[in-house]
C-alpha cells in the first residue's frame, strides 16, 4: 500500500483489485471466525417427532380451499376432476404442476419443512422411493386418518393397501402407478425384443437409452443379473453397476435420460429405451406411432406416485377430502382416461367398459382399447413379474446412490 492514498484512479483501482496486506489478512481472519460462530458447531439432525394421528386431526377443520402440487400432465388441462370436487364439496382448489422430479422437489421442500415452514402445498404427489422414505423418516408427513378415507377403504386395490414403502397407508395413498419396462421402435430394431438383456445387444450400439434416475437404472442392472431389487444388498449393487458400466463402455448406451426419452425414441436417435408404461400408451394414442412396450422376461418394477400431506399443511382436512374423492371409481376412471397410467382403483376398468358401451365409433374403440390395455390394467400374470423398489435406511441410501450416479455421470 502506498503511504498517501488519494482518490486517484490508482485508488479506485485498488477497490476493485484485492491487495493483501497483513492487516487485511487479519481482518479476513476475524470475519471467518465470525462466520464460524454463525455456522455453529454442526448441522442438526433434521428429524422431527412423529405425530400421532388422533392428536394431529383433533383441532383441524375444512377451510374451503386446497393447494395441490402435482406432476405435469397428471390431470387434463380442463382439470375436470377438480371442478367435480369443487361442485361436490365447495372446496376450491389451487392446482400447480410444480413437481418435476423427486430429488429436486425434495431438495426444494426439505429445508422449509426442516424449519416447520409452509411449503405452499397441502397435498403433493411423490413416487415411492428414496425421497419419500426420507420424508417419512424425517417425520415431515401428516399421519392420515383412515376414518376420513371411506372410498379408499372400499375401492382401493388390495396391493395398494399393503405396499412395502408405507404399510397400512400411514402417510400416503396412491395416485397412480406405472411400470418401468422397455419401449422400442420395431421398425428400427428389426426384431422383437423380450428381455432386459436385449439392451446389452451390441447390434444396438449407440441406440439404447437408459434412465438417469439412480433407482430406475439400478433396478434394471439388478434384474439383468437376476437379483430382486427389493432384497438387494450392497454387493448386488456393485454387481449391477459392473454390468451397467460395461454396457456404457461398450458404447451401447446413447444417453441417460431423466424424462425426455420419448422424443429421441420417436425420431430415431435411440431404438430401444427404458420407459414408463403410460408415456408409451399416450404417445401411441396421441401421435399414432407404433412403439412397443413390454415387461421384460427378467421382470420390471412397479412404482407408485402417492398423495401425501406435509405436516405443515394449512388445509389438511381439505387435502384428505381430495384424497378420498379421487378413490370414487367414476372419478378414478375419468382420471385414468387422461393420464393412461395404472389407477389404484380396479373398478375403474368396469366403469370404462360401461362408458364405452354408451358410446359409438372411434370414441368407443378408444375407450375399449384403454380398458383392455395391460399397460393401464395389468393382468395378474403381469403383476407377478413386477418387483418393488429397494427400501433403504438413511445412511445406506447414500452408498446406493453414489454407486449408480457413477454410472450415469461418467
Amino acid at each position, binding site marked *: 500500500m502506498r503511504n498517501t492514498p488519494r*482518490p486517484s484512479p490508482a485508488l479506485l483501482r485498488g477497490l476493485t483489485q484485492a491487495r493483501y496486506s497483513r492487516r487485511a489478512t487479519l481482518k479476513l481472519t476475524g470475519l471467518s471466525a465470525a462466520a464460524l460462530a454463525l455456522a455453529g458447531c454442526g448441522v442438526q439432525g433434521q428429524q422431527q417427532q412423529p405425530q400421532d394421528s388422533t392428536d394431529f386431526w383433533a383441532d383441524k377443520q375444512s377451510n374451503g380451499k386446497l393447494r395441490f402440487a402435482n406432476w405435469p400432465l397428471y390431470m387434463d388441462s380442463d382439470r375436470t376432476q377438480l371442478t367435480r370436487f369443487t361442485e361436490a364439496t365447495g372446496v376450491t382448489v389451487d392446482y400447480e404442476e410444480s413437481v418435476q422430479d423427486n430429488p429436486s422437489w425434495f431438495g426444494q421442500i426439505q429445508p422449509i419443512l426442516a424449519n416447520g415452514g409452509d411449503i405452499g402445498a397441502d397435498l403433493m404427489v411423490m413416487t415411492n422411493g428414496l425421497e419419500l422414505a426420507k420424508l417419512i423418516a424425517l417425520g415431515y408427513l401428516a399421519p392420515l386418518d383412515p376414518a376420513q378415507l371411506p372410498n379408499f377403504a372400499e375401492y382401493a386395490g388390495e396391493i395398494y393397501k399393503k405396499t412395502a414403502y408405507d404399510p397400512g397407508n400411514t402417510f400416503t395413498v396412491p395416485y397412480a402407478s406405472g411400470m418401468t419396462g422397455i419401449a422400442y421402435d420395431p421398425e428400427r430394431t428389426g426384431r422383437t425384443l423380450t428381455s432386459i438383456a436385449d439392451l446389452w445387444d451390441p447390434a444396438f450400439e449407440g441406440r439404447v437409452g437408459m434412465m438417469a434416475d439412480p433407482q430406475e437404472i439400478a433396478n434394471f442392472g439388478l434384474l439383468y443379473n437376476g437379483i430382486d431389487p427389493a432384497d438387494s444388498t450392497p454387493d448386488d449393487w456393485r454387481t449391477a453397476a459392473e454390468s451397467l458400466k460395461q454396457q456404457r463402455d461398450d458404447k451401447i448406451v446413447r444417453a441417460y435420460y431423466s424424462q425426455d426419452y420419448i422424443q429421441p425414441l420417436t425420431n430415431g436417435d435411440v431404438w430401444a429405451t427404458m420407459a414408463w408404461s403410460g408415456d408409451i400408451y399416450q404417445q401411441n394414442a396421441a401421435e399414432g406411432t407404433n412403439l412397443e412396450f413390454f415387461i421384460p422376461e427378467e421382470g420390471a418394477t412397479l412404482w407408485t406416485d402417492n398423495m401425501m400431506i406435509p405436516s405443515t399443511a394449512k388445509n389438511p382436512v381439505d387435502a384428505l377430502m381430495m384424497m378420498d374423492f379421487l378413490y370414487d371409481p367414476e372419478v378414478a376412471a375419468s382420471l385414468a382416461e387422461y393420464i393412461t397410467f395404472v389407477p389404484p382403483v380396479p373398478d375403474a376398468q368396469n366403469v370404462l367398459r360401461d362408458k364405452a358401451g354408451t358410446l359409438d365409433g372411434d370414441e368407443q374403440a378408444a375407450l375399449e382399447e384403454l380398458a383392455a390395455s395391460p399397460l393401464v390394467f395389468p393382468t395378474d400374470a403381469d403383476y407377478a413379474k413386477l418387483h418393488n423398489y429397494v427400501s433403504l435406511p438413511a445412511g445406506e441410501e447414500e452408498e446406493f446412490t453414489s454407486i449408480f450416479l457413477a454410472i450415469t455421470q461418467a
Partner: protein
Amino acid sequence: MARERTTATPYLLAMPGWIWLAAFFVVPIIGMLWMSLMTGNIVTGFQPTFNFGVYPQVIATYWEQILRSLAYGLCATLLCIAIGYPLAFWIAFHGGRNKATYLLLLLLPFFVSQILRTISWKFLLADNGVILGTLKSAGLLPDGAHVLSTSTAVVFGLAYTFLPFMVLPIYAVLERVDHRIVEAAHDLYASRIQAFVRVVLPLSLPGLFAGVLLVFVPSSADYVNASVLGGTHNTMIGNIIQSQYLVNNAYPVASAITFVLMAILLVGIFSYAKALGTEQVMEVQAK
C-alpha cells in the same frame, strides 16, 4: 480534515458493494467450507469432524470430470474468440449507424430462457432432424452420424450460450479505439494486417482478457449443456455438484467439489492475469 474526508469517500461509496459481497459471498462460502469438513447424513444430521480426507477423496473420484470441464470451458472460450472477435470488430468498425441494432440482435436470444434455447438445439440437431436429416438424405453424411450426445454438441452449446459475454467487452474496447491512430499507422506505411496486429489488437487485449474470464469461468461450471446435449461420457463437474447436492444430499461432498473447482479456477485466473498483466484489465473496468 478535508484530506481525510477525501480519503474516506471512495471507501464509503464502495461500502454497499462490500456489504453485499460479505453477506452473499464471504459468509456463505465460509459456511460451505465448514460444511465440507463434516460427516453424516441428512436424516441424522452432519457433525463437524474436520474430515479433510474428503478433499483427496473427491479429487480422486472426480478428476476426470474436473479436467473435462476445464477442457470444455477452454474449447468453448477459443470458439467464442474465433466467432466473437471478428463479430465485435465488424460491429465496432463497420457497424455504422446500426451498431445499436446489431448489439440488440446479439442480445436478443437472452430474452428466451437458456434451457429453452438449449433444448431447441436438441431439436435442430436430432439424428434425423432438419440439419442432419437433410445432410444424410443428400448423401453428405453417413447414416449413423450424430452430433447430439457427443462432446462436440456440449462445446458448441457452451460457446453458443456464452458468446455475447465475449463479444460485448471486446466491442467496448474496440469501439473506443481512435481511428486516427489507425490512420497514423497507415501513414507510417503499415499494411492493414500490420496495423491490426501492432495497433488494434494490443489495444483490444483488455477486452479480450475480460471476455475470456466471462466465458471461461461460467462455461467450466455449467451443467445445463452437458445434461441436455451430452451423452454418456460428457458429464461436467457442475452436473456432479448438482446431483451430489440435490439427488444424493451429500452436502459435504458437494461443498468439497465446489471448493476444489473454485481453487482451480482462481489459480488459473491469477496465473493468467499475471501473464497478461492486470493493469490494463482494471483500466478497462475503471472506464
